[in-house]
């Protein structure tokens, strides 16, 4: 069902020194800040440029649309020399990524410059229509609706990065241009560079990105969200989703617990599905449990969910915690074995606003069963936010 993905959470948390700490921080007067990670043996360089973006009200979805359009443009250019390039909307930012040979540095800079440039005058309507269809499709599914409801309950003031029916209906080029204009600024952007090239060349590339010091156009009022009803999709099973907000400091234990629960429910028999995820939404970290069952198994599923944390606390062993924390640590280190993976780890942590990743690696190294059992006990006693869908 849902698969716990620890990476965004891992990257948000740690501070300190270690293998994932940048080798160098370059501060350019007026910005941007640049984190440099050296990979001496690699002939490949990767750049990750993030443009922090928080949308208000009727802007919801603008960043996603800008990223979608930029992604198409960047991939077309990158294909000419076989480079890797993409743009993506994350919870915190629009992220532009390129990787390729050091010998193609100029071309890589060009791909970034074109991708980060202002939205084009033509072609946005088709993309906006795609986004509207994606949005509607998402809300036709029980997962999509439950996620939207939980998100709205957890962080009422936050807009959905995918947009809402209301915001997408009113989205236009003017609004998109305004969101781009006020965010793609020198002082706001963050750059991570990973590779074996001199800092001077990194600075040259960054200076050539075409970033401005201040917005050019007159600001467009964000506009209030007019309200977008969340539909009740037709379902043939009973669906439940429960959200447990976590405290700062719980995260290492939560990751281990989520993995343990995920393993347990991979092997559960019976007629129903259970899943565990960790979300980062609106600056909050949340453990989300979901279940889906046909009528004949609904009671069994609900009973299972009710006992989930208590049962896990009773079963989890020191060996389990050691194995799972080792696996999580391995995941992080292995994902950083390439220049683009390394840039991503450091960049994600930076975007989340909590410094480096190494502290979490240390926390995972030292965590024991007692901490995880304590967390499971606290989750068991907590009252979650709960949403349901029934046939």
């Amino acid at each position, binding site marked *: 069902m849902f698969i716990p993905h620890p990476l965004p959470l891992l990257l948000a948390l740690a501070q300190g*020194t*270690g*293998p*994932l*700490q*940048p*080798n*160098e921080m370059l501060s350019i007067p007026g910005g941007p800040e640049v984190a440099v*990670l*050296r*990979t*001496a*043996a*690699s*002939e*490949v360089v990767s750049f990750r440029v993030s443009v922090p973006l928080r949308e208000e009200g009727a802007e919801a979805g603008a960043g996603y649309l800008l990223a979608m359009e930029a992604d198409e443009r960047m991939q077309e250019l990158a*294909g*000419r*020399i*076989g*480079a*890797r390039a993409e743009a993506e909307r994350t919870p915190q930012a629009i992220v532009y990524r390129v*990787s*390729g*040979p*050091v*010998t*193609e540095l100029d071309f890589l800079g060009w791909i970034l410059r074109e991708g980060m440039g202002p939205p084009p005058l033509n072609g946005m309507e088709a993309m906006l229509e795609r986004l509207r269809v994606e949005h509607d499709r998402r809300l036709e599914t029980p997962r999509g609706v439950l996620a939207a409801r939980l998100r709205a309950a957890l962080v009422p003031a936050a807009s959905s990065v995918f947009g809402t029916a209301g915001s997408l209906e009113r989205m236009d080029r003017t609004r998109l241009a305004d969101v781009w204009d006020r965010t793609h600024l020198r002082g706001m952007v963050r750059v991570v560079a990973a590779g*074996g*090239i*001199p*800092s001077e*060349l990194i600075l040259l590339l960054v200076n050539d990105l075409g970033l401005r010091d201040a917005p050019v156009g007159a600001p467009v009022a964000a506009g209030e969200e007019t309200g977008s009803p969340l539909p009740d999709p037709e379902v043939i099973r009973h669906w439940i989703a429960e959200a447990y907000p976590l405290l700062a400091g719980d995260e290492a234990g939560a990751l281990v617990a989520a993995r343990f629960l995920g393993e347990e429910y991979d092997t559960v028999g019976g007629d129903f599905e259970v899943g565990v995820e960790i979300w980062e939404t609106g600056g909050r970290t949340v453990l989300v449990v979901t279940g889906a069952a046909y009528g004949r198994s609904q009671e069994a599923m609900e009973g299972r969910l009710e006992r989930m944390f208590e049962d896990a606390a009773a079963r989890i062993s020191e*060996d389990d915690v*050691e*194995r799972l924390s*080792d*696996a999580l*640590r*391995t995941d992080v*280190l*292995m994902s*950083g*074995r*390439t*220049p*683009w993976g*390394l840039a991503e780890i450091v960049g994600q942590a930076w975007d989340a606003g909590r410094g480096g990743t190494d502290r979490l690696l240390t926390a995972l190294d030292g965590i024991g069963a007692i901490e995880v059992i304590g967390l499971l006990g606290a989750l068991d006693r907590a009252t979650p936010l709960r949403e349901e869908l029934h046939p």
Partner: protein
Amino acid sequence: MSWLTLPAALLVLGGALPGTVADGSRIHPGTATLQHVQDPVRPPTPYAASVLDTDPEARILAVSILFPAGSSRDPVGREGTAALLASVLRLQARGALGRHQAALETELSENDLLVTLLTPYDAWREAIITLEMLLYEAPLSQTAFAGARSEILEVLAFESGAPVRAFELERARLLLGPDAWGARPILGSPDALASITLADLETFRATHLRTEGATLAAHGPVEAAELASLLSSDIEELSERSRAGRRSEAPPGSGEQLPPAPLLLHLGPHVETEIPPPGARPAAWEEGKRILVDRELTSSWISAAFPFPRETPDLLLQFLAHLVREELTPVPPERGLFHADASTMEIEGAPVLVLTASIDPQITLAWEERLVGVMGRMAVEPPDGAFFGLAKRRFRTQALLELALPEARVEWMARRRAAGLPHSPDLVGEIWGLNRSAVMRTAELAGPAHVIVYGPRAMMGP
């Protein structure tokens, strides 16, 4: 498609998950009980060759060990032995390497077995010790054996009757000969697998997984002296990036600032690749063959394989394959084409370029003509001007992005070393030295193709 030269009938058997084991411990089959030993395991004899590319900034140590024994060494009637052993090692590694947050992959072909270890910088010694215990000493686990056999049987069941596998077998029989080992399924058969015992695997391991024939390649933040003492082998250093006196326990990225790496600009200097002289004869075969296998399917497969002289440089052949692949797979894709690819292989050390296409049966014969004629076209009219330049840049990017993966880099190092090819070549310079004339002259050297057409004969049209 990997630009690395692949031996015939390559099969990747997948990855591993970490488990638990303490340093210097023995693993008892079927249990998690560990017993500490005083001395770490040493292989009985040094490796035939050991090469190291030191990267002080790497966060991961990657190690590949290439054993020159693959599925062709399966005992008669026990086909699948090597595949089963490779799977057992992988599964057993989950329980042994996980404490060191290391991961193990195995890759089996007709001719060799590649074992690749990835381990974080701060656990590499323990991981290597554990790896060598697994490969050479620790009893094979009954649990892993049962799990591996079950996995392979599932794969065989899933692929049973799969047209693409049948096509690949027919192609292997055409290229290698009907009785060649490469023409037999690497995974064996359910009957053969049922007859293989754990003792058979132990025998295979003891016979074929030996250091004296194996090549080891490593890349990461280790010093040659440290690695040499652990392996009891001489280590050949491919680079001078190791820093004398560097604290081996310090994590990469902390402490001193490294001097910036030299900038690799290849806008001018390049390395010329030597081409075999005109008239050099193809090595794998001298006369082409064509077979048509009539099967009631919804798509057709075609393969055209071209032999080249033994001295044909691998890089040039890879580049030629790249150009052909781009010609066959334009964007947007052609109507009726489901998939096309070009790759290189070796048949008893002789290079062969293999083209494959999966198409709508109605355009089969047109595509056969197209594949068979491609070398002729490349010999006369390869891409030129800016198109050639861009194709070369794409080839270079593809190669370098692939080698940015530590596991791909050590595999590449191990295979080159085992083949006696030069160490640490100036790959960027060599690629930049590829020119249109070299492509044309190489394409001229292609011998007559072996062609297999596989699909519904009644539906094939012009």
